[in-house]
């Protein structure tokens, strides 16, 4: 068991890749065997993630040096810097890992019946596993170039999966957009990595953070990195691609795309808090991120009001919720250098943002799954053509209501638990931000109530009289999300203490991240 945990950080990345390479071979022989292998593999990975999470929270940062004579040998003899690729798993990484593990399991369970009858399933599952492996790699790696490589894996397999339904022109265009945006973003990231490498001859995040001088070139690299990652997570100046891709992908893929966007959010946190840390012009960068967040909230919610397509509506809601996280992060970043302010409200703001990351993945995932279930049964996403579906699809209607209430921050659900953390801490920083946030939440609620009434209530339309509830595996997938949402909503204190607080401490504590790589520096 100890050896398994010792190697778990690499196994979590390598096992999905291994199964992905195996899937085409197994799929030739038997479809059932393939599905079984995929589910068992992902369940094993999820088990490893939870075991690793427990270990990291109890024993601190987990280091794995690839190709060295033993995993802890970060710096070889005869030099002062790390040479090999190092996986570095701390509280935040493992927190993101938990999100990816849950989301990927649910996505596969949902796909089992949602994809029935489609061609090309072998390749579908292969690419899905590659995407999961890529997202795990993004959150676990401690090396900048490795981050870029895994970002590429995620975006290429994501683009191919978005274009899965080749009979619709929309999907092809969505895939094209996604890959163009991610190619530009990742090449700019590589350029910024080159700028950092040119000055310090290092690629490891911890070692770079220790050597950081914050010169002119570092500022250029910072601007490029922030804009590229904001582009990848769908922040406002570059949010156009998000609604076009999320709405056309198969929904189980959309759920994974949300997780991939959250991994970009994680990368943004890493860049700001760990790579640059206190050397930044904290107030300036913090306010820039707050501004991006405010714009995202505002534009996301106003665009959502106008949508009649249910998936596009939810996609714009994603932009809006990403804004909340960015505001929380920005406030935390702005006061990072100020010990007292950080203690009174800074860490709370960051906790709120981090907690909102997992809540966002859960309730947006649930909403997308519901939209996918409706599409599966009636073949349209247009809200105006729906009506009275609540009579026949009772579970689906209930799940939609649950997701909508959680998303708008209504008390007994998880969205409230994280939004209240953001509101109360941001209020101490700047009250106007909180007022805007509450307003945006209210409009979100209005949007979802409108959508709920037009889709599920009213008289049952005659053409939908034969519509049945969706298959059991789809219900099971949605139930997993729903149960976690309710648990998180009922016991937010426990979750914050066990998972969110360690993640926040790990994010703020730049020194121990560096020490884990470079050894204790006096």
């Amino acid at each position, binding site marked *: 068991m100890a050896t398994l945990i010792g190697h778990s950080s690499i196994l979590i990345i390598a096992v999905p890749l291994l199964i992905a390479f195996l899937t085409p071979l197994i799929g030739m022989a038997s479809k059932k065997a393939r599905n079984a292998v995929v589910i068992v593999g992902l369940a094993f990975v999820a088990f490893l993630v939870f075991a690793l999470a427990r270990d990291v929270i109890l024993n601190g940062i987990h280091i794995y040096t690839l190709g060295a004579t033993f995993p802890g040998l970060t710096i070889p003899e*005869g030099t*002062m*810097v790390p040479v090999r690729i190092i996986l570095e798993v701390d509280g935040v990484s493992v927190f993101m890992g938990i999100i990816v593990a849950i989301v990927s399991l649910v996505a596969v369970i949902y796909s089992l019946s949602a994809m029935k009858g489609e061609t090309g399933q072998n390749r579908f599952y292969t690419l899905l596993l590659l995407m999961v492996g890529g997202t795990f790699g993004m959150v676990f790696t401690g090396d900048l170039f490795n981050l870029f490589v895994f970002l590429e894996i995620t975006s290429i397999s994501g683009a191919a999966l978005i274009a899965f339904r080749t009979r619709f022109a929309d999907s*092809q265009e969505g895939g094209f957009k996604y890959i163009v945006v991610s190619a530009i973003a990742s090449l700019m990231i590589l350029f910024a990595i080159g*700028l950092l490498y040119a000055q310090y*001859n290092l690629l490891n995040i911890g070692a770079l953070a220790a050597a950081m001088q914050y010169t002119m070139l570092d500022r250029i690299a910072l601007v490029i990195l922030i804009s590229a990652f904001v582009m990848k997570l769908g922040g406002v100046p570059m949010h156009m691609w998000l609604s076009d891709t999320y709405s056309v992908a198969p929904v189980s893929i959309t759920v994974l795309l949300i997780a991939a966007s959250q991994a970009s959010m994680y990368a943004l946190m890493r860049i700001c808090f760990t790579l640059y840390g206190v050397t930044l012009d904290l107030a300036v960068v913090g306010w820039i991120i707050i501004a991006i967040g405010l714009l995202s909230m505002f534009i996301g919610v106003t665009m959502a009001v106008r949508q009649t397509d249910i998936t596009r509506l939810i996609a714009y809601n994603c932009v809006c919720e990403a804004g909340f996280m960015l505001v929380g992060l920005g406030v935390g970043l702005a006061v990072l250098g100020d010990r007292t302010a950080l203690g009174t409200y800074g860490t709370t703001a960051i906790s709120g943002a981090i907690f909102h990351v997992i809540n966002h993945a859960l309730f947006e995932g649930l909403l997308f799954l519901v939209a996918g279930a409706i599409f599966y049964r009636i073949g349209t996403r247009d809200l105006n053509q729906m009506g009275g579906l609540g009579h026949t699809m009772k579970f689906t209607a209930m799940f939609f209501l649950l997701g909508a209430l959680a998303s708008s921050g209504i008390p007994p659900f998880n969205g409230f638990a994280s939004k209240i953390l953001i509101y109360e801490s941001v209020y101490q920083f700047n009250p106007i931000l909180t007022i805007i946030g509450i307003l945006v939440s209210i409009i979100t609620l209005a949007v979802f109530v409108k959508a709920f009434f037009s889709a599920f209530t009213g008289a049952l339309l005659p053409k939908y009289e034969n519509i049945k509830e969706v298959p059991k595996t789809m219900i099971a997938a949605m139930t997993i999300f729903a149960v976690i949402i309710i648990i998180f909503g009922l016991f937010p204190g426990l979750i914050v203490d066990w998972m969110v607080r360690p993640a926040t401490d790990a994010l703020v504590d730049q020194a121990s991240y560096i020490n884990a790589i470079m050894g204790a520096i006096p």
Partner: protein
Amino acid sequence: MRQFFAWLLLIVLMVFLVIGGFEMVHPFGEPPSTMDQYIIDNAQEEAGSNNVVGAVVFDYRGFDTLGEATVLFAAVMGVLLVLRASEKKEET
């Protein structure tokens, strides 16, 4: 209007980057080399490879190469997925 902003963005970005190019801390031809010099000195002994780039690609940064091979695999799978013949599922 949109054109104007795009031009502005492009020009600002380029001026920014060109200044960066001229202001490189280490001039062309004299890069810093703490990490690379270690690899050049030890590649033969540790990886047993005369080709230092080969040693970096498959030994020191082998995980990147796994990722890169995976990217290629994903792209080929994607091409075959996107260009597959037709879908049997009828429209509902």
